[in-house]
């Protein structure tokens, strides 16, 4: 599956230009199972990019891990989910030096979280390369209770923390790496529009 094309929206909505090799510079690569495909393509365009790359695969299948291993990255790490990956991402960022490139690939939730961790460490957003692959599920924050619901695929959806029915907005918080969800029936409680699949 190629880099997803999203329909044009407000400026707040992130877009993902795709990964371009920065050659033999140091790299930190974070990808999920679908995103690993983008890393393979990247290594296909320039094999040297793996020589100094720390790769972290999040929730990847065994076959995917083996494919990345075959590309001989300098180091390969794994984590079952983003929560488990977060301390490792923070450690990789804190040990990295200026000139290290950050390559993210996979779901918007993964890219949003990791880019938020990186910008909190002072890395400018334009220094982060991202390529969307796989599910278009979103990481949504409820603007009312501030709770974050992962893998949202429908609009509206139910906040997993406070139970409000939330409308999926394109408004994105770069600081938190989440889209914002707003109560859909605040004016007329119970009047909820029909549930739809989120589209790209």
């Amino acid at each position, binding site marked *: 599956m190629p880099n997803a094309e999203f329909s044009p929206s407000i400026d707040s909505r992130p877009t993902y230009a795709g990964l371009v090799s920065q050659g033999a510079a140091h790299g930190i690569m974070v990808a999920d199972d679908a995103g690993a495909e983008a890393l393979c393509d990247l290594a296909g365009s320039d094999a040297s990019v793996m020589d100094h790359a720390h790769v972290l695969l999040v929730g990847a299948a065994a076959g995917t891990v083996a494919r990345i291993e075959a590309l001989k990255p300098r180091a390969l790490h794994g984590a079952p989910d983003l929560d488990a990956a977060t301390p490792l991402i923070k450690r990789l960022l804190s040990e990295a030096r200026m000139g290290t490139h950050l390559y993210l690939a996979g779901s918007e939730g993964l890219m949003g979280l990791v880019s938020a961790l990186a910008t909190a460490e*002072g890395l400018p957003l334009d220094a982060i390369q991202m390529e969307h692959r796989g599910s278009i599920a979103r990481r949504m924050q409820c603007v009312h209770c501030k709770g974050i619901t992962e893998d949202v695929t429908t609009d509206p959806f139910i906040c997993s923390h406070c139970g409000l029915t939330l409308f999926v907005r394109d408004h994105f918080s770069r600081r938190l790496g989440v889209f914002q969800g707003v109560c859909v029936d605040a004016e007329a409680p119970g009047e909820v529009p029909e549930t739809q699949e989120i589209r790209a």
Partner: protein
Amino acid sequence: MSKLALKVTAVETLSPLVKRFRFESPTGAPLPVFSGGAHITVEMPEGEIVRRNSYSLISDPYDGSGYEIAVRREDRGRGGSRHMHTKVREGDEITVSAPANHFQLDLRARKHVLIAGGIGITPFLSQLKQLGMEQKPFELHYAARSREEAAGLKLLPGAAHIHIHISDEGARMDLGAILDGQPLGTHVYTCGPDGLITAVADQAARLGWPKTSVHSEAFTAPPPGEPFEVVVKSSGKTVTVKADQSLLEALEAAKVEIDYSCRGGACGRCETHVTACDGRILHNDHWLSEAERAEQKTIMPCMSRFKGARLELDL
């Protein structure tokens, strides 16, 4: 632009060429606080002309009891700094603008590297206070030719992460060594001569630093030059710019409305459209790109001058 009528409460010689000035409110009212790297514009009336130069604030950004600046005398300048050095005394009244900032710290940075050349130390003096207050990791490198000329020495606290490089003593600044191996998320800020700013940007680029982590402020007052004339399109009026006057000052004296902030060719605020140009614009700003300069369709009146038959501005 909001103005403040203040009183000069201290003048101190820091080095043969640099003086420190302190301004306070005559009523003791607190002044607006600012952020590290901010500047004020100081008015210097002399006869019928009013010169205005911008100077970085060097005092504590959170201290509203007064503003302090350090002024280097530029004998080849158009007279603003000379005026400050020879005419301004304790007890004088002085008009300044409210602080504005085009050289802020990016407070998301994990670490800040500050690089100053000569009088370019000034914006960092207020930033240091802010960094101390915010408890942010930083290192400062201050390069000067000789200890005698290094006015900043009197204003800098002694601290392990403040490094002084005096070239007369053979301690030249090694930019490669400074920038290499900094932790991811570091931002670098340079203030000083153009050569230093370019050298830092080049070195950072070689080491793969993202452009947006590299900040600079070119520290300049408008240069003097040969007198010239400009035509104001809306009124058809011809304004003469004297040798020791900037185009912006001449337009202000002629009561032409024009916006400004830095008065040093850095902020872009005074950018003016050129409607006719028969001659050559002497661009002295740091705002326009090479291509824009070559086009001669825009000018930054705070810094730039003109040589030729006719220059008409869209004002």
